[in-house]
């Protein structure tokens, strides 16, 4: 997960200019924003609101309709817990509970130190490995609470999970 660029209002205005100041371009504008920053910074929403002459609240309403859009800066590491049928049957909810407990955040949120984002996904397509957890781009199958704790310890100790 490479760090995305820092927020830049000039870039934002140029990008909106490119799309045209019309409310029908709102979603492409939001997509471009997320592509640039990895999420929708609140300053970007303000600028979009001003340029398109609609309220920030309306933009927020549109954006929250789509799970694609994020409102918090993604962390250095992203942990995705699979909650598809196979993983669910294999008690992936216990793993999610453990992550919630340990990180103190809900799926969709990022720890306050900006290190770890937690997400839940529907199915990763490797049900034979259930329950599955993906940390950054590495897939970990047949997960147990013990293994997950170890992995977390490593991330938190700043070693990075890939050294394993």
């Amino acid at each position: 997960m490479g760090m995305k660029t820092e927020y830049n209002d000039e870039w934002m205005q140029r990008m909106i200019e490119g799309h045209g100041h019309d409310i029908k371009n709102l979603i492409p504008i939001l997509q471009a924003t997320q592509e640039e920053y990895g999420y929708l910074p609140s300053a970007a929403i303000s600028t979009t609101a001003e340029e398109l002459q609609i309220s920030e609240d309306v933009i927020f309403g549109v954006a929250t309709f789509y799970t694609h859009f994020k409102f918090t800066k993604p962390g250095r590491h992203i942990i995705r817990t699979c909650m598809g049928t196979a993983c669910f049957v294999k008690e992936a909810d216990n793993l999610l509970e453990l992550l919630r407990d340990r990180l103190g955040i809900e799926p969709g949120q990022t720890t306050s130190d900006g290190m770890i984002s937690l997400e839940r996904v529907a199915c990763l397509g490797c049900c034979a490995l259930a329950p599955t957890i993906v940390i950054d781009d590495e897939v970990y199958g047949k997960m147990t609470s013990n293994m997950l704790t170890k992995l977390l310890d490593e991330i938190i100790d700043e070693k990075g999970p890939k050294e394993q």
Partner: protein
Amino acid sequence: MKITIDGVEIPIKEGQTILEAARDSDIYIPTLCAHKELPAFGACRLCVVKVDKMRGFPPACSTPATDGMIVHSDEKEVRKLRRNILRLILIEHPHSCIVCSERADCESIRGGPVKAGRITGCSMCPNRETCEIREVSHYLGISDMEIPMEYKGLPLERYDPFFDRDYNLCILCGRCVRMCQQIRGVGAIAFTKRSHNTKVGTIFGRTHLEGACRFCGACIDACPTGALSPKGSKWHGKADSSVESICTFCSMNCAMVLEEKWGRVMAAIPDRNKEYSRAYACVYGRFCIPAFLNDPNRLHYPLIRKGGRLSPVSWEEAFRYIGDSLKRFAPEEIGFLVSPYLTNESAYLLNKLSRDVIGSHNIDMISKFGRMVIQYLAEKGRASSSWTTLEDVEKADWIMLINNDMVFTHPGMPVAIHKARENGARIMIVDDSKNELEVESDMQVRIEPGSLRTFLAALTKLLMNNIKVTELEELDSFIDFRRSLDGLKLIDAVRSTGVLEKQFSAIEGTMRTSKKGVIMVGSRIMEDPVPTQILGEINNVLTILGMDRGFIPLLEEGNIRGIADSGCINGFRPGYVRDRTSGKDYLRMITGIRRGDVQALFISEGSIPPEHIRGAKFIVLSEIYPTDLDSMADVILPSAVFSEESGHYTSFDGRVWNLRKAAEPPGSALPEWKIISGIGKNLGGDGFEYGSSEDIWKEMEENIDFFKKDGRPPVPERKELLSVSEPGSIHLSEQMPYVVRYRGTPIHELVEDLRTYLEENDRIPREEDESAVEEAQREVV
């Protein structure tokens, strides 16, 4: 064209939906999301009907009615379907009050709701008589729920001023969201998230105070549930009585229904049945009326200064004392400073008292901007004709807004402007500071402070280049006008205003496209040392465009227009008939007091700075709340407020409204017309024997052409050109922003939530800074 609903044939109009046609013929079809003032939405599905030759069950709200259609609404199959739809809605809405076996008894007794923050049971819901869910479920005959309720458990939102929100009651009909976005043009709320998590909310769950909300309360009035409730008026239950009256806090005079309980006005609700003003009511009228009028500090008894102290006396004694005291002064030593919140009748009587009985022609209005504008228009012979109306605004092709803060001074006006814009009007903002409406406009021109005259002059010059004005060339003033324009170089105007040449021509081009335009100007032009010059230059623009109408000064005080019409303006008797004897206007009265020419004053509100009247020997003050002038007054008379008397008001655009009495005044306070009559009789004046304010109005209608039906003269042609000012920057005098008030008392002084709202928007200094400001003001004085 006709359709048949349940065997009844009803007429339809082109483009109507089945629901609209049914409503017009008083046929009830249950709905929860449809609203008369909003376009169809189709969210609740309760209005499903059966239509012959159509598949399934189309919703009546969004199905166009076509000639010969046969609709079945009140049919077993349809009712069953609707019942099940409503049950699904009720799963997420606490509904113990709907399925209760005691419902019939409850409805006949119905006390006020139990004060409780969270609404989980029937007795805690503040939605008292107005619950549409109850109505619909009663119609459909729902008496049981087979599916258990699912309580959402959302946190209460009670941290904003004016209203509470409990979205556990929300059925997501979207009326509030649509009202806010489509009618008010604000968009402070939206549907957030989706599916089960959908909730009406704000960006990142911010408070409304931080967000775009203007606290107009339109969402509350549209809500079919008790999810949104006004803090100030949710617990008193059913009103004892209600009257149709108006709000008097600004000159728009929105129609309101005043609800009375226990002898007081407990709530004011926008009158949805009045086409003209139903959508404009704002934070002041919707939320502030009860708290402002019912403050315990209201004056109760007449007071006379005896031995340095104010003591309560009877009205007879007060009248006698005033009569005896005034007789000691020559007529020209007496002055009348009139509150722009009096009724037309009271103003008419004050004119009679001053000019006819006492013989003093020193009479003028207590106002800055309104007095300046109306005096100017009266001198030009333009005050008596009908003014540009709200309808003209809504139907305009272009609107230019100059130096105003209408979001705070006339919060209803942006609603009309939003409607105009939806209809295709171009909105142009010309302002020397930030204007809240910039996000709702097509062109924003930020001019350098002090360069408004130059801006208007340059605009005039551009218009002159492009419009033939042969008729105007014959005017006496034309030569000087032409010469003043020749001296103006566009490049100089660009330099001193900061407006680009292309902006100038874009504005000029837009204005030339149509004569259906409106120029609105706000009170910030009073910062100019000669504000009438600005009015004159606006008149130039309209003259060249050939527009006889199209000018709206955003008059602030509730009845400033009406009291001027009724003769409380210097130099003009009622109906703008020239007063043949000259008298002193406001400013000359003030200097007259200093010189000793004016010695006695009758003042009908305490908003005048005390230093203006220092030195007067005898001061009668009629007011509703104690003010800074009390320490200087010899007599203080407690007056009734607008909800405690009947009479007439005239809004900024010349429409005459009925004020109706909703409650009794406190103590022995009297309506102003009775006070003036009392003084008049004691001075031996004739013509003060009125049984009611209606008698006065009749006298006005009979004797003065202006007040007769169609009695106002036609709008005169614009035939005057004023030489434009030299380009450059005028030195402006600093001015405090106007705060909305009534009878001299700012509304926010008595309404804490309004103070919070205005502080947040920097319209008034924060409470902690206020003492510092007062200190600074004292030094200036």
